């Protein structure tokens, strides 16, 4: 290895160290500020809680309120809605792509459905699906489906026209084109849409839990608000941040593995 090459590697490593150091500093600074501001009552400690109280509350939730159960409920709902969402998006995107006329017909309705704040449908969903996990999953699906369908459909539409022409020169059937070209060619888009989809699913699940639930992190947050225990609300939010971050990282990892 040449000296220049070593210097280059050193430069990259130094940059990485700087980035990580500052990331840690920002987090630590934020937590210390929050703790101090709360301790000296510059912000209202009852409303904004504090890191020490959050840790204490989490410990209490873990011991007395079955915190793990709540986390598992949310994760379970997210996973089901995520898998269902991806599968349905994929199937619907294929149908829309294969039958262009159908796509033209339902386009205004899709646009309407897309611009409608899905949470407005909440009460209706509860009446139809019942006050249970089903409602929460339907809610999450409403939110992740449209995004999923659109990103997969766009992937299909972006396939190189020359490749389609090549298949046509061989008199390929529509099924051949679908199985041998459309689906394999949009593999990358589908994998990349997973990341967006997991975030959307989590939003939907928490929204669903706000509306109707007996357990889950959304339930904890709403329950905390109702009994005016804002330490519980803050703790719920902190755990949610950690979970969404971890889920996102897992998906990114899977994406990397699959695209290698």
């Amino acid at each position, binding site marked *: 290895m040449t000296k220049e090459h070593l210097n280059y590697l050193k430069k990259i490593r130094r940059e990485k160290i700087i980035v990580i150091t500052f990331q840690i500093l920002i987090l630590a600074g934020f937590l210390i500020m929050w703790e101090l501001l709360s301790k000296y009552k510059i912000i209202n400690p009852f409303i904004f809680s504090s890191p020490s109280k959050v840790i204490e509350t989490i410990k209490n939730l873990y011991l007395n309120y079955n915190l793990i159960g709540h986390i598992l409920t949310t994760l379970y709902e997210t996973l089901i809605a995520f898998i269902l969402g991806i599968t349905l998006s994929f199937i619907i995107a294929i149908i829309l792509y294969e039958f262009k006329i159908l796509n033209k017909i339902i386009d205004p309705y899709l646009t309407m459905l897309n611009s409608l704040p899905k949470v407005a449908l909440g009460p209706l969903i509860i009446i139809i699906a019942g006050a249970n996990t089903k409602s929460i999953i339907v809610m999450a699906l409403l939110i992740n489906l449209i995004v999923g369908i659109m990103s997969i459909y766009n992937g299909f539409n972006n396939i190189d026209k*020359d*490749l389609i022409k*090549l298949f046509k*020169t*061989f*008199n*390929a059937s529509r099924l051949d084109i679908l199985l*041998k070209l459309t689906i394999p060619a949009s593999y990358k888009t589908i994998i990349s849409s997973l990341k967006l989809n997991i975030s959307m699913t989590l939003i939907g699940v928490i929204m669903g839990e706000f509306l109707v639930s007996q357990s889950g992190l959304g339930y904890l947050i709403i329950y905390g608000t109702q009994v005016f225990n804002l330490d519980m609300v803050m703790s719920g939010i902190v755990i949610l941040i950690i979970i969404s971050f971890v889920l996102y990282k897992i998906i990114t990892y899977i994406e990397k593995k699959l695209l290698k």
Partner: protein
Amino acid sequence: MNKLLSIKNLNKVYYSKKDEIEAIKDITFDIYEGEFVSIVGPSGCGKSTLLNILTNMDTKTKGTIELNKNLKLGYMLQSDSMLPWRKVIDNALLGLEIKKEKNTENIQYVRGLFKKYGLSNFLEKCPNELSGGMRQRVALIRTLALKPDILILDEPFSKLDYQSRLKVSDDVYKIIKEEGKTALMVTHDLAEAISISDRVIVLSDRPCEIKNIYKIRREKNGSPIENRKDKNFAYYYDLIWKDLAYHDERAS
């Protein structure tokens, strides 16, 4: 000579919301066995439309296309269009796979072509590991895999840089001749058309009509690169250039 393909009074009209566009007007020509025929014309004149009609990818408005007996046409496109997720050999077998003719005999034939044209070492590689020229040769093998009698080539070298273009057109010419195929090529490169073909058909601007058909006579027929040195080369170049330049003058 044996007449393979005969096109008579071919017409093509496109319709848009506002009007009708006459793309092809009254085209008539024949292709004989073993010939290499090129079609040149101003860009956008409807050359590709003509090929699309011949290969049943577009419909004609009027006229007849007679194909001798049950001859097969093979279409080679401008872009090599390799599927990046398939190995080179599987790309070459794509046509056979779609036509459900992927049997041991045909696979052996394709492998034989790879070997004959020096690509055996790349069978198991990914397409993006190959140079543009190699990919173009694989694309030709993919077309040859279906054993067509007439090859239809749509600007097959236009995406290559000048150096590889000369080299690959030599290679492709050699492969087509060795496999004893008849070829019809569309190009906008006059030099390429004159150096590679037995006949050059010059088309006019839209609506495209046949302006002239030149039988290329050389002192000695060689590879396309050698043919560029032929003493008649400049003569034909000049003739065809004038045929095409006429339209620019009229337009301006």
